[in-house]
């Protein structure tokens, strides 16, 4: 069994309204130190396979098929073996 921790980020240069509005809200709440907020999505996916290479190939496919839209998203992941 492997666990893939996948992070879907916005590409550099793509506007992040959620981050921007969160920053504004934090400022309103008195957190004057907040300089910038960026958002990303995190998925933790358990894969029932014994082969790390196969797990990696699966995760690549998953990212392209659903989790990331290449127009705005970059993705990265860590794969760990679990018991």
């Amino acid at each position: 069994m492997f666990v893939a921790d996948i992070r879907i980020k916005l590409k550099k240069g793509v506007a992040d309204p959620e981050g921007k509005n969160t920053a504004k809200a934090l400022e309103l709440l008195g957190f004057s130190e907040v300089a910038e907020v960026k958002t990303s999505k995190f998925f933790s996916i358990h894969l029932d396979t014994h082969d790390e290479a196969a797990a990696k190939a699966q995760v690549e496919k998953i990212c392209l098929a659903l989790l990331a839209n290449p127009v705005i998203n970059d993705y990265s992941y860590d794969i760990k073996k679990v018991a």
Partner: protein
Amino acid sequence: MALEGLYKKIEAPFPLSEVLLSKADDEQLKLIAAESGTGLSLDEMKMLVAYFKDLGRDPTEVELQAIGQAWSEHCCYKSSKQILREFVFGIDSPRVIDRGDAGVMHFDTENVYSLRIESHNHPSAVEPYGGAATGIGGIVRDVLCMGCQPVALIDPLFFGRLDTPNAELPKGTKHPTYLFGGVVSGIRDYGNRIGVPTISGSVVFDDSYTGNCLVNVGCIGIARKEHLYKNRVGGIGDNLVLVGGRTGRDGIHGVTFASAVLTGESETESRGAVQLGDPITKEPVIHSVLEVGRRKLITGMKDLGGGGLSCVCGELAFAAGFGVEVQLDRVPLKEDGLLPWEIWVSESQERMMLAVTDENLEEVLHIFKFNDVEANVVGRVIPEPLARVFFKGIKVLEMDLKFLTGGPEYCRPREIRKPEYGTPEKAPARDVSHTDALLELLASENICSRDWVIHQYDHEVRGCTVLKPLQGALGHACHGDASVLKPVEESWQGLAVCTATNPWVMAIDPYRGGKAVIDEMCRNLVAVGARPDAFSNCLNFGNPEKPERLGEFHEAVRGMGEAAAKLDIPTPSGNVSFYNESETGSVMPTAVVLGTGIIPDVRKSITTDLKSDGVIYLVGRTGPEMGGSAYHRLTGASSPKVPDTDLEVLRDAMKALLIAMDEGLVSSCHDISDGGLAVAIAEMCIGGRKGAELDLESLGPLPEEAALFSESCSRWLVEVPRDSAERFEAILGPAATLIGAALGDELLITRGEEILVSASLTELENAWRGTLWRLMGGSE
């Protein structure tokens, strides 16, 4: 430990105990009630002792928990029933078709509509996003289980002032901006996702809600008459099919949580009582339930709300005079290891129970599978009026349903106070010009534009919303009095929907406040051209064990009942929420109504925005009744003299106005409420992009501030095209007073030669528009 030896283990492949009530003394009974989380009183525990003594045994813990749920204030209305019966249950009408989980009313020869409003206060105070979302889920199921398609959501909300300094917050209380933001997001994300438009609501801000916000949620449904269902099983042998979400530990003891006062520790103690919602389970549940309903594949249904399986199984079967046998093993669970009592009382969301004959079972299960919704047979209807529950082959509960679902009923002591004892006559603490007072009122939290909220809710999905919550010129639309739906494809008949509440008046004089709420509801409905047809009420009060609080409740219900009876407006559904108190005290007595009205032709609906250069009439009489008014709150004044409603005057004015509207004589109309005549005309000007000149000389010898800002009941401002004025006056008679005309781009209010108010349209709109955006953030 004081309870040692009172829990006797029963031989079973899971933890199960018998609770030896027969061996417990009073102190131990109280301890058992507290430790089990059931919240039963000592008297109620003693009723249990007696019941089981007759049976010659002690209850299992499952039985104890089932009673705790069924007998909570939230489930059985033990403190309020007697008062409600005296004043409102009796208002009947042939238009009422059913009084189930939602009330059902006649709409036209083929169709009915249903309505209900209820509270979701305590969960929202602890976790605003999830609390509000699950509130929507629950009210939608109430309408759905009558067989109705949900077509509208309505949300009156009450919070502390948004500018409350953090230092003033009681321990454990969340800031009103956090609660308000979270509740609106919860309603938005749930309501928008399930595709039911949120068409009406209100937001009230006052210090009394800081420790205990109120989140009331209402829903309207529509159905063809032949697709209506009762909340009861069809007959012996019916399968009980549990559909929708899985059962988990979320929402355990929700009803007992709702029936206690909030404390600083409520958050940490009660997280388990807040359920999590899942709108994307709900949407296919709605779809599938309506399909099996339309195809007559079920005999009855009910939603799982407060009390979970325990309440729904008992009530479904008992309503038909039968009993039920349930296998808890068959209930699909979110996590392993739930104890039988937890499964039995869990209030997990998105669940409904259907009664299905053997013959239709396969088809029903197929429809749910097709829509990816879980459906499982968990029990069967039996002839004896009993609930019998098994888990892993062992009987864990057997109780008489009459005893279980009956519940105690109290006639608690109440103290009815005269308003003049509580509220002194106090002059304004500050001097402010009338123009400034108007601009400050328009900018005040309780009157300013709600567009920050409204645009976040989808109010037009389903494509039936004829009058929307914001009405007027594009880009300048202002608040309407009611929204209007055209719910049936083949008909132009419309359903108008509004909310009404006035806690400030009710806090001073609950009886007059009760009448005033009904008056406001009627004003709102008539303003759009609708005949008031029915209302559902949500009564949010403090601790009913305090005589003063119950006295407020008694008087408020008396006032509402008197007005509704006189005006022939039945209330086929309602909800009482007591214990709205925190460490800083009780909320103001807050009666909220969800009113519905019928418009024979939606093409005749009327909005609040000024349309042309018509003349303006004031309908109704203005008195120096400033108690509880927005003007008094603004200036720091107070008075026990709150507006009173003359029900005959109201009835006659409504009738005359509706005749004039039917004849097409009215181009715009707005009810006069918070902030009085001056605020009402300002709103009409803003929405219409049009100024007005009014002369209040003809109102009689009133103090200037009363003429401008009094909130006397039963009043409207009406714009009438000049060539219709004569006919309008003939219909309205002395009820209508000509006070001015729509013209220019400025609001000018005079009394004879003297100028009382003068402000440009831009000044009015700027004052009114920005407040919530400023306090809540976000770009306007």
